[in-house]
Protein backbone atom coordinates (compact mmCIF):
# COMPACT_ATOMS: atom_id res chain seq x y z
CA UNK A 1 0.00 0.00 0.00
CA UNK A 2 1.35 3.42 -0.83
CA UNK A 3 0.11 6.93 -0.37
CA UNK A 4 0.65 10.28 -2.00
CA UNK A 5 2.88 12.27 0.23
CA UNK A 6 3.42 15.99 0.03
CA UNK A 7 6.79 17.45 0.86
CA UNK A 8 7.03 20.35 3.30
CA UNK A 9 9.91 22.46 4.61
CA UNK A 10 9.86 23.18 8.34
CA UNK A 11 12.54 25.64 9.48
CA UNK A 12 14.66 24.46 6.53
CA UNK A 13 14.16 20.77 7.34
CA UNK A 14 12.15 18.55 5.02
CA UNK A 15 9.36 16.13 5.80
CA UNK A 16 6.87 14.06 3.81
CA UNK A 17 3.26 14.29 4.94
CA UNK A 18 0.09 12.32 4.33
CA UNK A 19 -2.83 14.69 4.86
CA UNK A 20 -6.47 13.64 4.80
CA UNK A 21 -9.93 14.38 6.23
CA UNK A 22 -11.58 17.38 7.80
CA UNK A 23 -12.43 18.39 11.33
CA UNK A 24 -10.31 19.04 14.39
CA UNK A 25 -6.57 18.81 13.60
CA UNK A 26 -4.89 15.53 14.50
CA UNK A 27 -1.17 14.73 14.21
CA UNK A 28 -0.56 11.01 13.75
CA UNK A 29 2.92 9.71 14.57
CA UNK A 30 3.60 6.24 13.18
CA UNK A 31 5.56 3.46 14.86
CA UNK A 32 8.76 1.56 14.05
CA UNK A 33 7.51 0.16 10.75
CA UNK A 34 7.12 3.26 8.65
CA UNK A 35 3.97 5.13 7.68
CA UNK A 36 2.46 2.80 5.08
CA UNK A 37 1.51 0.11 7.60
CA UNK A 38 -0.42 2.70 9.62
CA UNK A 39 -2.40 4.20 6.73
CA UNK A 40 -5.53 2.07 7.24
CA UNK A 41 -5.78 3.37 10.82
CA UNK A 42 -4.96 6.90 9.65
CA UNK A 43 -7.71 6.71 6.99
CA UNK A 44 -10.23 5.59 9.62
CA UNK A 45 -9.36 8.60 11.75
CA UNK A 46 -9.56 10.88 8.70
CA UNK A 47 -13.30 10.14 8.57
CA UNK A 48 -13.68 12.44 11.58
CA UNK A 49 -10.49 14.51 11.83
CA UNK A 50 -8.17 16.60 9.73
CA UNK A 51 -5.23 14.21 9.93
CA UNK A 52 -1.61 15.09 9.28
CA UNK A 53 0.55 11.95 9.28
CA UNK A 54 4.24 12.61 8.66
CA UNK A 55 6.71 9.98 7.56
CA UNK A 56 9.37 10.45 10.23
CA UNK A 57 12.37 12.16 8.60
CA UNK A 58 15.06 9.56 7.98
CA UNK A 59 12.58 6.77 7.28
CA UNK A 60 13.18 5.54 3.73
CA UNK A 61 16.05 8.02 3.36
CA UNK A 62 19.36 9.08 4.89
CA UNK A 63 19.42 10.01 8.57
CA UNK A 64 18.90 13.80 8.68
CA UNK A 65 21.96 15.68 9.93
CA UNK A 66 19.82 17.28 12.64
CA UNK A 67 18.68 13.99 14.18
CA UNK A 68 20.57 12.62 17.18
CA UNK A 69 17.86 11.72 19.65
CA UNK A 70 14.14 11.50 20.22
CA UNK A 71 14.03 15.10 21.48
CA UNK A 72 15.03 16.28 18.01
CA UNK A 73 11.91 14.63 16.59
CA UNK A 74 9.75 16.17 19.34
CA UNK A 75 11.00 19.70 18.69
CA UNK A 76 10.78 19.17 14.92
CA UNK A 77 7.10 18.20 15.17
CA UNK A 78 6.37 21.14 17.49
CA UNK A 79 7.87 23.28 14.71
CA UNK A 80 5.68 21.44 12.20
CA UNK A 81 2.49 22.24 14.13
CA UNK A 82 3.50 25.91 14.15
CA UNK A 83 4.40 25.92 10.47
CA UNK A 84 1.04 24.40 9.54
CA UNK A 85 -0.71 26.88 11.86
CA UNK A 86 -2.85 24.12 13.32
CA UNK A 87 -3.18 25.53 16.83
CA UNK A 88 -3.52 22.97 19.62
CA UNK A 89 -3.77 19.48 18.07
CA UNK A 90 -4.76 16.00 19.03
CA UNK A 91 -1.53 14.03 18.98
CA UNK A 92 -1.81 10.29 18.46
CA UNK A 93 1.27 8.10 18.36
CA UNK A 94 2.20 4.46 18.38
CA UNK A 95 5.34 2.78 19.67
CA UNK A 96 8.28 5.08 18.80
CA UNK A 97 5.69 7.61 17.56
CA UNK A 98 4.05 7.56 20.99
CA UNK A 99 7.44 8.22 22.55
CA UNK A 100 7.83 11.29 20.32
CA UNK A 101 4.32 12.42 21.37
CA UNK A 102 5.27 12.12 25.05
CA UNK A 103 8.44 14.12 24.52
CA UNK A 104 6.39 16.82 22.76
CA UNK A 105 3.86 16.87 25.60
CA UNK A 106 6.43 17.51 28.33
CA UNK A 107 8.23 20.17 26.27
CA UNK A 108 5.19 22.16 25.17
CA UNK A 109 1.96 21.01 26.86
CA UNK A 110 -0.12 23.84 25.37
CA UNK A 111 0.54 22.57 21.84
CA UNK A 112 -1.40 19.36 22.53
CA UNK A 113 -5.15 19.37 22.87
CA UNK A 114 -5.03 15.69 23.80
CA UNK A 115 -2.41 12.97 23.88
CA UNK A 116 -3.00 9.37 22.77
CA UNK A 117 -0.28 6.77 23.09
CA UNK A 118 -0.33 3.13 22.05
CA UNK A 119 2.33 0.46 22.75
CA UNK A 120 4.52 3.32 23.79
CA UNK A 121 8.28 3.43 24.13
CA UNK A 122 9.88 6.14 26.27
CA UNK A 123 10.27 4.82 29.80
CA UNK A 124 11.88 1.76 31.32
CA UNK A 125 10.53 -0.55 34.00
CA UNK A 126 13.32 -2.46 35.73
CA UNK A 127 12.87 -6.17 35.31
CA UNK A 128 10.25 -5.85 32.57
CA UNK A 129 12.15 -6.59 29.35
CA UNK A 130 11.02 -5.03 26.10
CA UNK A 131 11.23 -6.52 22.65
CA UNK A 132 14.47 -5.94 20.76
CA UNK A 133 13.72 -5.19 17.08
CA UNK A 134 17.44 -4.80 16.37
CA UNK A 135 18.77 -8.01 17.88
CA UNK A 136 15.80 -10.23 17.14
CA UNK A 137 15.19 -11.80 13.75
CA UNK A 138 12.36 -10.27 11.72
CA UNK A 139 10.22 -13.33 12.41
CA UNK A 140 10.73 -13.10 16.16
CA UNK A 141 9.77 -9.42 16.07
CA UNK A 142 6.57 -10.29 14.20
CA UNK A 143 5.76 -13.02 16.74
CA UNK A 144 6.03 -10.44 19.51
CA UNK A 145 4.11 -7.76 17.63
CA UNK A 146 0.90 -9.65 16.82
CA UNK A 147 -1.26 -11.90 18.95
CA UNK A 148 -3.35 -13.52 16.25
CA UNK A 149 -1.69 -16.61 14.74
CA UNK A 150 -3.19 -16.03 11.26
CA UNK A 151 -1.87 -12.46 11.25
CA UNK A 152 1.55 -13.70 12.34
CA UNK A 153 1.59 -16.18 9.45
CA UNK A 154 0.53 -13.54 6.96
CA UNK A 155 3.11 -11.04 8.22
CA UNK A 156 5.93 -13.61 8.15
CA UNK A 157 4.97 -14.54 4.58
CA UNK A 158 4.89 -10.86 3.60
CA UNK A 159 8.31 -10.33 5.19
CA UNK A 160 9.79 -13.20 3.19
CA UNK A 161 8.42 -11.84 -0.08
CA UNK A 162 9.78 -8.30 0.31
CA UNK A 163 11.37 -7.06 -2.91
CA UNK A 164 14.75 -5.32 -3.10
CA UNK A 165 13.27 -1.83 -2.88
CA UNK A 166 11.16 -2.67 0.17
CA UNK A 167 14.19 -4.32 1.77
CA UNK A 168 16.30 -1.26 1.16
CA UNK A 169 13.61 0.92 2.73
CA UNK A 170 13.49 -1.46 5.67
CA UNK A 171 17.25 -1.09 6.19
CA UNK A 172 16.92 2.69 6.06
CA UNK A 173 13.97 2.71 8.50
CA UNK A 174 15.86 0.48 10.92
CA UNK A 175 18.93 2.68 10.70
CA UNK A 176 17.02 5.83 11.58
CA UNK A 177 15.13 4.03 14.32
CA UNK A 178 18.46 2.86 15.75
CA UNK A 179 19.77 6.43 15.72
CA UNK A 180 17.12 7.49 18.26
CA UNK A 181 16.33 4.23 20.05
CA UNK A 182 19.52 2.15 20.26
CA UNK A 183 20.82 3.29 23.61
CA UNK A 184 19.30 3.56 26.07
CA UNK A 185 17.04 1.06 24.30
CA UNK A 186 13.70 2.69 23.51
CA UNK A 187 13.65 5.03 26.49
CA UNK A 188 14.84 8.37 27.74
CA UNK A 189 15.93 8.05 31.38
CA UNK A 190 14.96 11.71 31.97
CA UNK A 191 11.44 11.51 30.57
CA UNK A 192 9.61 9.85 33.45
CA UNK A 193 10.37 12.64 35.95
CA UNK A 194 8.71 15.23 33.70
CA UNK A 195 5.57 13.36 32.68
CA UNK A 196 3.49 15.39 35.19
CA UNK A 197 3.80 18.17 32.62
CA UNK A 198 1.67 16.13 30.19
CA UNK A 199 -1.44 17.41 31.90
CA UNK A 200 -3.73 17.41 28.85
CA UNK A 201 -6.45 14.73 28.60
CA UNK A 202 -4.61 11.60 27.63
CA UNK A 203 -5.43 8.12 26.50
CA UNK A 204 -3.35 4.96 26.75
CA UNK A 205 -4.37 2.29 24.22
CA UNK A 206 -2.60 -1.01 24.68
CA UNK A 207 -2.82 -4.49 23.25
CA UNK A 208 -3.33 -6.89 26.12
CA UNK A 209 -0.75 -9.26 24.65
CA UNK A 210 1.84 -6.69 23.62
CA UNK A 211 5.11 -8.63 23.36
CA UNK A 212 7.29 -5.61 22.58
CA UNK A 213 6.16 -3.30 25.41
CA UNK A 214 4.36 -5.52 27.91
CA UNK A 215 1.13 -4.34 29.52
CA UNK A 216 2.99 -3.35 32.72
CA UNK A 217 4.20 -0.32 30.76
CA UNK A 218 0.61 0.76 30.11
CA UNK A 219 -0.15 0.61 33.82
CA UNK A 220 2.97 2.62 34.63
CA UNK A 221 1.99 5.30 32.12
CA UNK A 222 -1.45 5.40 33.73
CA UNK A 223 0.26 6.21 37.07
CA UNK A 224 2.55 8.83 35.55
CA UNK A 225 0.20 10.79 33.28
CA UNK A 226 -2.01 13.16 35.31
CA UNK A 227 -5.24 12.74 33.33
CA UNK A 228 -5.03 9.37 31.67
CA UNK A 229 -7.62 6.87 30.62
CA UNK A 230 -6.44 3.32 29.91
CA UNK A 231 -8.04 1.17 27.21
CA UNK A 232 -6.82 -2.39 26.94
CA UNK A 233 -7.59 -4.16 23.67
CA UNK A 234 -8.18 -7.75 24.74
CA UNK A 235 -6.42 -10.46 22.79
CA UNK A 236 -4.48 -7.92 20.76
CA UNK A 237 -0.70 -7.66 20.29
CA UNK A 238 1.67 -4.71 20.08
CA UNK A 239 0.65 -3.51 16.64
CA UNK A 240 -3.00 -2.81 17.41
CA UNK A 241 -3.36 -0.25 14.56
CA UNK A 242 -2.45 -3.06 12.13
CA UNK A 243 -3.87 -6.08 13.89
CA UNK A 244 -7.22 -4.63 14.95
CA UNK A 245 -7.54 -1.49 12.89
CA UNK A 246 -11.26 -0.91 13.42
CA UNK A 247 -11.21 -1.50 17.19
CA UNK A 248 -8.12 0.65 17.53
CA UNK A 249 -9.51 3.53 15.48
CA UNK A 250 -12.82 3.38 17.33
CA UNK A 251 -11.08 3.49 20.72
CA UNK A 252 -8.91 6.40 19.63
CA UNK A 253 -11.69 8.42 17.97
CA UNK A 254 -14.15 7.64 20.78
CA UNK A 255 -11.84 9.17 23.36
CA UNK A 256 -11.15 12.22 21.22
CA UNK A 257 -14.92 12.69 20.81
CA UNK A 258 -15.40 12.67 24.59
CA UNK A 259 -12.41 14.93 25.20
CA UNK A 260 -13.37 17.56 22.61
Amino acid sequence: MGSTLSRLKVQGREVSLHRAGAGAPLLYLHGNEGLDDYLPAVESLAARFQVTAPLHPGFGEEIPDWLDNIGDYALFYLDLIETLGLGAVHVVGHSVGAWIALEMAVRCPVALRTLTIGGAAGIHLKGVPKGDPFFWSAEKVIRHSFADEAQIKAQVAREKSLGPEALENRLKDQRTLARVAWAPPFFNPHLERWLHRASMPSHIVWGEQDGMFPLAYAHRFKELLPQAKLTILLGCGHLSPLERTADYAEAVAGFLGEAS
Partner: protein
Amino acid sequence: MTQFYCFHLMPYAALDLKLLDTYGTTWTELPNSAFDPAEGHRLYNRYLDELEAAERAGFDGVCINEHHQTAYGLMPSPSIIAAALARRTTRAKIAIVGHAALLRNNPLVIAEELAMLDNITGGRMICAFVRGIGTEYFNWQVNPTYSHERYRESHDLILRAMTETGPFAFEGKHFHFPYVNIWPKPFQKPHPPIWAPSTGSRETVEWAAHPDRRYTYLQGYGSFAASERFFQMYREAAQRNGWTVTPDKLGWLGPVYVGETDESAMAEAKEHIEIFINKLLVKPVQSLLPPGYTSIDSMRATLDRQRHIQAGGQTAEKLAADGVFLVGSAETVRRKVGKLVEEFGVGHVMGCLQFGTLPADLTMKNIERFANEVIPHFKG
Protein backbone atom coordinates in the same frame (compact mmCIF):
# COMPACT_ATOMS: atom_id res chain seq x y z
CA MET B 1 62.18 -7.23 3.75
CA THR B 2 58.93 -9.12 4.33
CA GLN B 3 57.93 -9.20 7.97
CA PHE B 4 56.28 -12.28 9.48
CA TYR B 5 53.98 -12.30 12.47
CA CYS B 6 52.30 -14.97 14.52
CA PHE B 7 48.69 -13.97 15.08
CA HIS B 8 46.54 -15.38 17.87
CA LEU B 9 42.80 -15.11 18.46
CA MET B 10 42.98 -17.04 21.76
CA PRO B 11 39.71 -18.94 21.25
CA TYR B 12 38.02 -20.81 24.05
CA ALA B 13 39.07 -24.11 22.50
CA ALA B 14 37.64 -26.12 25.40
CA LEU B 15 34.11 -25.21 24.31
CA ASP B 16 31.56 -28.02 24.36
CA LEU B 17 30.57 -27.72 20.70
CA LYS B 18 27.28 -29.50 21.33
CA LEU B 19 26.08 -26.26 22.94
CA LEU B 20 26.08 -24.71 19.48
CA ASP B 21 23.25 -27.05 18.48
CA THR B 22 21.17 -25.15 21.03
CA TYR B 23 22.55 -21.62 20.72
CA GLY B 24 23.75 -21.59 17.12
CA THR B 25 26.49 -19.05 17.82
CA THR B 26 29.42 -18.40 20.14
CA TRP B 27 28.60 -14.67 20.12
CA THR B 28 26.48 -12.81 22.69
CA GLU B 29 23.91 -15.53 23.32
CA LEU B 30 26.08 -18.50 24.34
CA PRO B 31 25.83 -18.53 28.16
CA ASN B 32 29.15 -18.00 29.91
CA SER B 33 28.35 -20.90 32.22
CA ALA B 34 30.11 -22.82 29.42
CA PHE B 35 33.35 -21.08 30.41
CA ASP B 36 35.48 -23.10 32.86
CA PRO B 37 38.10 -20.91 34.58
CA ALA B 38 40.44 -23.89 35.03
CA GLU B 39 40.44 -24.25 31.23
CA GLY B 40 40.71 -20.48 30.87
CA HIS B 41 43.86 -20.44 33.01
CA ARG B 42 45.35 -23.30 31.05
CA LEU B 43 44.48 -21.79 27.65
CA TYR B 44 45.72 -18.25 28.34
CA ASN B 45 49.08 -19.60 29.49
CA ARG B 46 49.31 -22.05 26.62
CA TYR B 47 48.54 -19.32 24.08
CA LEU B 48 51.05 -16.90 25.63
CA ASP B 49 53.63 -19.70 25.50
CA GLU B 50 52.87 -20.12 21.80
CA LEU B 51 53.39 -16.43 21.03
CA GLU B 52 56.62 -16.38 23.06
CA ALA B 53 57.77 -19.50 21.19
CA ALA B 54 57.07 -17.70 17.91
CA GLU B 55 59.56 -15.00 18.83
CA ARG B 56 62.21 -17.59 19.72
CA ALA B 57 61.50 -19.46 16.49
CA GLY B 58 62.22 -16.38 14.42
CA PHE B 59 58.98 -14.49 13.77
CA ASP B 60 59.42 -10.72 13.51
CA GLY B 61 56.35 -10.04 15.58
CA VAL B 62 53.27 -11.31 17.33
CA CYS B 63 49.69 -10.12 16.76
CA ILE B 64 46.64 -10.01 18.96
CA ASN B 65 43.20 -8.40 18.76
CA GLU B 66 40.03 -7.52 20.67
CA HIS B 67 36.68 -9.29 20.89
CA HIS B 68 33.88 -9.21 23.39
CA GLN B 69 31.47 -11.70 24.90
CA THR B 70 32.35 -14.67 22.72
CA ALA B 71 34.15 -17.99 22.82
CA TYR B 72 35.67 -17.02 19.44
CA GLY B 73 38.41 -15.02 21.16
CA LEU B 74 39.26 -14.45 24.81
CA MET B 75 40.82 -10.99 24.53
CA PRO B 76 38.30 -8.35 25.54
CA SER B 77 41.34 -6.29 26.54
CA PRO B 78 44.26 -6.80 24.15
CA SER B 79 46.32 -4.35 26.20
CA ILE B 80 46.44 -6.93 29.00
CA ILE B 81 47.75 -9.63 26.66
CA ALA B 82 50.26 -7.14 25.22
CA ALA B 83 51.41 -6.33 28.75
CA ALA B 84 51.87 -10.03 29.51
CA LEU B 85 53.97 -10.35 26.33
CA ALA B 86 55.90 -7.13 26.85
CA ARG B 87 58.24 -8.50 29.50
CA ARG B 88 58.48 -12.05 28.15
CA THR B 89 59.58 -11.04 24.67
CA THR B 90 62.62 -8.93 23.85
CA ARG B 91 62.77 -8.49 20.11
CA ALA B 92 59.41 -9.15 18.51
CA LYS B 93 57.03 -6.38 17.54
CA ILE B 94 53.73 -6.59 19.37
CA ALA B 95 50.91 -5.66 17.01
CA ILE B 96 47.44 -5.06 18.37
CA VAL B 97 45.20 -5.34 15.30
CA GLY B 98 43.40 -3.73 16.77
CA HIS B 99 41.77 -1.88 19.57
CA ALA B 100 38.04 -1.20 19.16
CA ALA B 101 38.65 2.25 20.61
CA LEU B 102 35.33 3.69 19.47
CA LEU B 103 33.44 1.28 21.70
CA ARG B 104 34.91 3.03 24.72
CA ASN B 105 33.21 6.02 26.26
CA ASN B 106 36.72 7.30 26.81
CA PRO B 107 39.10 6.27 23.99
CA LEU B 108 41.90 8.19 25.72
CA VAL B 109 42.43 5.09 27.83
CA ILE B 110 43.69 3.36 24.67
CA ALA B 111 46.21 6.16 24.01
CA GLU B 112 47.41 5.85 27.60
CA GLU B 113 47.72 2.06 27.47
CA LEU B 114 49.53 2.12 24.12
CA ALA B 115 51.95 4.75 25.39
CA MET B 116 52.67 2.65 28.50
CA LEU B 117 53.23 -0.48 26.42
CA ASP B 118 55.44 1.38 23.96
CA ASN B 119 57.65 2.64 26.78
CA ILE B 120 57.86 -0.73 28.52
CA THR B 121 58.82 -2.48 25.25
CA GLY B 122 61.17 0.28 24.13
CA GLY B 123 59.15 0.95 21.00
CA ARG B 124 58.00 -2.49 19.89
CA MET B 125 54.31 -1.64 19.62
CA ILE B 126 52.26 -1.54 16.42
CA CYS B 127 48.72 -0.31 16.80
CA ALA B 128 45.52 -0.44 14.83
CA PHE B 129 41.99 0.68 15.40
CA VAL B 130 38.98 -1.34 14.36
CA ARG B 131 35.25 -0.70 14.43
CA GLY B 132 34.46 -3.94 16.24
CA ILE B 133 32.17 -6.67 14.99
CA GLY B 134 28.44 -5.91 14.78
CA THR B 135 27.61 -8.05 17.82
CA GLU B 136 29.88 -5.89 19.94
CA TYR B 137 27.54 -2.95 19.46
CA PHE B 138 24.90 -5.02 21.22
CA ASN B 139 27.34 -6.05 23.95
CA TRP B 140 28.57 -2.52 24.66
CA GLN B 141 25.39 -0.62 23.73
CA VAL B 142 27.25 1.71 21.41
CA ASN B 143 24.96 3.18 18.76
CA PRO B 144 26.02 1.59 15.45
CA THR B 145 24.67 4.52 13.46
CA TYR B 146 27.60 6.52 14.85
CA SER B 147 30.14 3.79 14.11
CA HIS B 148 32.06 5.62 11.38
CA GLU B 149 31.86 9.00 13.14
CA ARG B 150 33.10 7.55 16.41
CA TYR B 151 35.81 5.58 14.62
CA ARG B 152 37.26 8.66 12.97
CA GLU B 153 36.88 10.81 16.05
CA SER B 154 38.43 8.29 18.46
CA HIS B 155 41.29 7.77 16.03
CA ASP B 156 41.92 11.51 15.81
CA LEU B 157 41.78 11.84 19.59
CA ILE B 158 44.28 9.00 20.16
CA LEU B 159 46.62 10.20 17.42
CA ARG B 160 46.63 13.77 18.70
CA ALA B 161 47.04 12.59 22.31
CA MET B 162 50.09 10.56 21.25
CA THR B 163 51.70 13.28 19.17
CA GLU B 164 50.68 16.77 20.32
CA THR B 165 52.01 18.64 23.31
CA GLY B 166 49.39 18.84 26.01
CA PRO B 167 47.35 20.04 27.60
CA PHE B 168 45.15 20.71 24.59
CA ALA B 169 41.38 20.66 24.11
CA PHE B 170 39.81 17.97 21.93
CA GLU B 171 36.45 19.25 20.74
CA GLY B 172 34.59 16.42 19.04
CA LYS B 173 30.92 15.56 18.72
CA HIS B 174 31.19 12.26 20.57
CA PHE B 175 34.33 12.90 22.60
CA HIS B 176 35.02 16.25 24.16
CA PHE B 177 37.99 16.63 26.49
CA PRO B 178 39.11 20.07 27.67
CA TYR B 179 42.45 18.74 28.97
CA VAL B 180 44.33 16.14 26.95
CA ASN B 181 47.85 15.67 28.28
CA ILE B 182 48.75 11.99 28.48
CA TRP B 183 51.62 10.71 30.59
CA PRO B 184 53.56 8.80 29.40
CA LYS B 185 53.88 9.72 25.74
CA PRO B 186 54.75 6.87 23.34
CA PHE B 187 58.37 5.74 23.01
CA GLN B 188 58.31 5.80 19.20
CA LYS B 189 58.33 9.15 17.40
CA PRO B 190 56.05 10.49 16.19
CA HIS B 191 53.94 7.50 17.28
CA PRO B 192 53.83 3.69 16.94
CA PRO B 193 53.01 2.54 13.39
CA ILE B 194 49.26 2.48 12.75
CA TRP B 195 47.66 -0.21 10.61
CA ALA B 196 44.19 -0.34 9.14
CA PRO B 197 42.75 -3.86 9.40
CA SER B 198 39.71 -4.75 7.31
CA THR B 199 37.88 -7.76 6.02
CA GLY B 200 37.41 -5.76 2.83
CA SER B 201 35.78 -2.36 2.71
CA ARG B 202 36.12 0.54 0.28
CA GLU B 203 35.53 2.99 3.13
CA THR B 204 38.52 1.63 5.07
CA VAL B 205 40.70 1.53 1.96
CA GLU B 206 39.98 5.16 1.13
CA TRP B 207 40.52 6.27 4.71
CA ALA B 208 43.82 4.39 5.14
CA ALA B 209 45.20 5.59 1.80
CA HIS B 210 44.62 9.26 2.63
CA PRO B 211 47.95 11.11 2.21
CA ASP B 212 47.89 12.29 5.84
CA ARG B 213 47.69 8.69 7.02
CA ARG B 214 49.24 6.21 4.56
CA TYR B 215 48.41 3.45 7.01
CA THR B 216 49.35 -0.13 6.25
CA TYR B 217 46.21 -1.77 4.88
CA LEU B 218 45.72 -5.17 6.46
CA GLN B 219 43.39 -7.55 4.61
CA GLY B 220 42.04 -10.23 6.92
CA TYR B 221 40.40 -13.55 6.08
CA GLY B 222 40.03 -12.79 2.40
CA SER B 223 40.34 -15.13 -0.54
CA PHE B 224 43.26 -14.52 -2.88
CA ALA B 225 40.79 -12.89 -5.25
CA ALA B 226 39.37 -10.55 -2.59
CA SER B 227 42.83 -9.70 -1.23
CA GLU B 228 44.10 -8.89 -4.69
CA ARG B 229 41.06 -6.70 -5.38
CA PHE B 230 41.39 -4.68 -2.18
CA PHE B 231 45.18 -4.32 -2.48
CA GLN B 232 44.62 -2.99 -6.00
CA MET B 233 41.90 -0.64 -4.72
CA TYR B 234 44.37 0.63 -2.14
CA ARG B 235 47.09 1.16 -4.75
CA GLU B 236 44.68 3.14 -6.92
CA ALA B 237 43.50 5.24 -3.98
CA ALA B 238 47.12 6.02 -3.05
CA GLN B 239 47.98 6.88 -6.65
CA ARG B 240 44.98 9.21 -6.79
CA ASN B 241 46.30 10.83 -3.61
CA GLY B 242 49.72 11.32 -5.13
CA TRP B 243 51.76 8.60 -3.47
CA THR B 244 52.93 5.11 -4.36
CA VAL B 245 52.31 2.02 -2.27
CA THR B 246 55.38 0.12 -1.06
CA PRO B 247 55.24 -3.43 0.39
CA ASP B 248 55.34 -2.15 3.98
CA LYS B 249 51.92 -0.57 3.33
CA LEU B 250 50.20 -3.90 2.61
CA GLY B 251 49.50 -6.70 5.06
CA TRP B 252 47.73 -10.04 4.82
CA LEU B 253 46.20 -11.92 7.72
CA GLY B 254 44.73 -15.40 7.68
CA PRO B 255 44.97 -18.94 8.96
CA VAL B 256 48.06 -20.92 7.96
CA TYR B 257 49.04 -24.52 8.56
CA VAL B 258 52.31 -26.14 7.53
CA GLY B 259 52.49 -29.94 7.66
CA GLU B 260 54.98 -32.59 6.65
CA THR B 261 53.18 -33.12 3.33
CA ASP B 262 50.14 -31.59 1.65
CA GLU B 263 48.09 -34.63 2.64
CA SER B 264 49.15 -34.75 6.28
CA ALA B 265 48.73 -30.99 6.62
CA MET B 266 45.14 -31.18 5.43
CA ALA B 267 44.44 -34.26 7.56
CA GLU B 268 45.76 -32.55 10.70
CA ALA B 269 44.16 -29.14 10.15
CA LYS B 270 40.81 -29.95 8.52
CA GLU B 271 38.68 -30.53 11.61
CA HIS B 272 40.06 -27.48 13.43
CA ILE B 273 39.79 -24.96 10.61
CA GLU B 274 36.24 -26.11 9.88
CA ILE B 275 35.29 -25.66 13.54
CA PHE B 276 36.87 -22.21 13.43
CA ILE B 277 35.00 -21.11 10.31
CA ASN B 278 31.73 -23.02 10.62
CA LYS B 279 31.22 -22.93 14.40
CA LEU B 280 33.17 -20.19 16.15
CA LEU B 281 32.78 -17.47 13.52
CA VAL B 282 29.06 -17.93 12.83
CA LYS B 283 26.54 -15.38 14.00
CA PRO B 284 23.01 -14.34 13.01
CA VAL B 285 22.92 -11.75 10.24
CA GLN B 286 21.08 -9.15 12.33
CA SER B 287 23.81 -9.25 14.98
CA LEU B 288 26.56 -9.23 12.35
CA LEU B 289 25.17 -6.11 10.70
CA PRO B 290 23.33 -3.86 13.15
CA PRO B 291 21.57 -0.88 11.52
CA GLY B 292 23.93 1.85 10.37
CA TYR B 293 27.08 -0.19 11.02
CA THR B 294 27.91 0.22 7.33
CA SER B 295 26.35 2.12 4.44
CA ILE B 296 23.33 0.43 2.85
CA ASP B 297 25.46 -0.46 -0.21
CA SER B 298 28.22 -2.01 1.91
CA MET B 299 25.59 -3.78 3.94
CA ARG B 300 24.14 -5.38 0.83
CA ALA B 301 27.59 -6.37 -0.43
CA THR B 302 28.55 -7.80 2.96
CA LEU B 303 25.28 -9.68 3.16
CA ASP B 304 25.99 -11.30 -0.20
CA ARG B 305 29.58 -12.08 0.77
CA GLN B 306 28.77 -13.28 4.27
CA ARG B 307 25.64 -15.26 3.58
CA HIS B 308 27.54 -18.39 2.67
CA ILE B 309 30.12 -17.84 5.42
CA GLN B 310 27.45 -17.38 8.07
CA ALA B 311 25.53 -20.36 6.78
CA GLY B 312 28.46 -22.55 7.81
CA GLY B 313 29.20 -25.73 5.91
CA GLN B 314 32.49 -24.54 4.39
CA THR B 315 35.17 -27.13 3.77
CA ALA B 316 38.89 -26.84 4.46
CA GLU B 317 39.55 -27.86 0.86
CA LYS B 318 37.45 -24.99 -0.51
CA LEU B 319 39.05 -22.50 1.89
CA ALA B 320 42.47 -23.73 0.74
CA ALA B 321 41.54 -23.53 -2.94
CA ASP B 322 40.29 -19.96 -2.51
CA GLY B 323 43.40 -18.88 -0.65
CA VAL B 324 41.55 -18.02 2.56
CA PHE B 325 43.51 -20.77 4.34
CA LEU B 326 47.16 -21.35 3.43
CA VAL B 327 47.70 -25.04 4.08
CA GLY B 328 50.11 -27.71 2.87
CA SER B 329 53.70 -28.80 2.99
CA ALA B 330 56.36 -26.16 3.59
CA GLU B 331 56.90 -26.01 -0.14
CA THR B 332 53.21 -25.45 -0.86
CA VAL B 333 52.90 -22.77 1.82
CA ARG B 334 56.08 -21.08 0.54
CA ARG B 335 54.47 -20.94 -2.89
CA LYS B 336 51.25 -19.45 -1.50
CA VAL B 337 53.08 -16.91 0.64
CA GLY B 338 55.17 -16.18 -2.44
CA LYS B 339 51.98 -15.27 -4.28
CA LEU B 340 51.14 -12.75 -1.55
CA VAL B 341 54.63 -11.31 -1.44
CA GLU B 342 55.65 -11.40 -5.08
CA GLU B 343 52.33 -11.05 -6.92
CA PHE B 344 50.35 -8.92 -4.49
CA GLY B 345 53.29 -6.96 -3.08
CA VAL B 346 52.51 -7.70 0.56
CA GLY B 347 55.17 -6.69 3.10
CA HIS B 348 53.55 -7.98 6.29
CA VAL B 349 52.35 -11.58 6.51
CA MET B 350 50.34 -12.45 9.59
CA GLY B 351 49.69 -16.13 10.01
CA CYS B 352 46.99 -17.24 12.37
CA LEU B 353 48.86 -20.42 13.35
CA GLN B 354 46.42 -21.56 15.98
CA PHE B 355 42.79 -21.68 14.86
CA GLY B 356 39.65 -23.17 16.33
CA THR B 357 40.48 -26.24 18.33
CA LEU B 358 43.99 -26.83 16.92
CA PRO B 359 45.77 -28.46 19.88
CA ALA B 360 49.03 -27.32 21.49
CA ASP B 361 51.31 -29.92 19.92
CA LEU B 362 50.13 -29.22 16.36
CA THR B 363 50.21 -25.46 16.95
CA MET B 364 53.81 -25.64 18.15
CA LYS B 365 54.84 -27.80 15.17
CA ASN B 366 53.08 -25.34 12.87
CA ILE B 367 54.95 -22.39 14.38
CA GLU B 368 58.30 -24.19 14.09
CA ARG B 369 57.76 -25.39 10.51
CA PHE B 370 56.63 -21.96 9.39
CA ALA B 371 59.58 -20.28 11.13
CA ASN B 372 62.17 -22.78 9.92
CA GLU B 373 60.95 -23.67 6.47
CA VAL B 374 58.91 -20.72 5.20
CA ILE B 375 60.21 -17.48 6.71
CA PRO B 376 63.92 -17.94 5.79
CA HIS B 377 62.95 -18.31 2.14
CA PHE B 378 61.76 -14.68 2.15
CA LYS B 379 64.67 -13.29 4.15
CA GLY B 380 67.16 -13.57 1.28
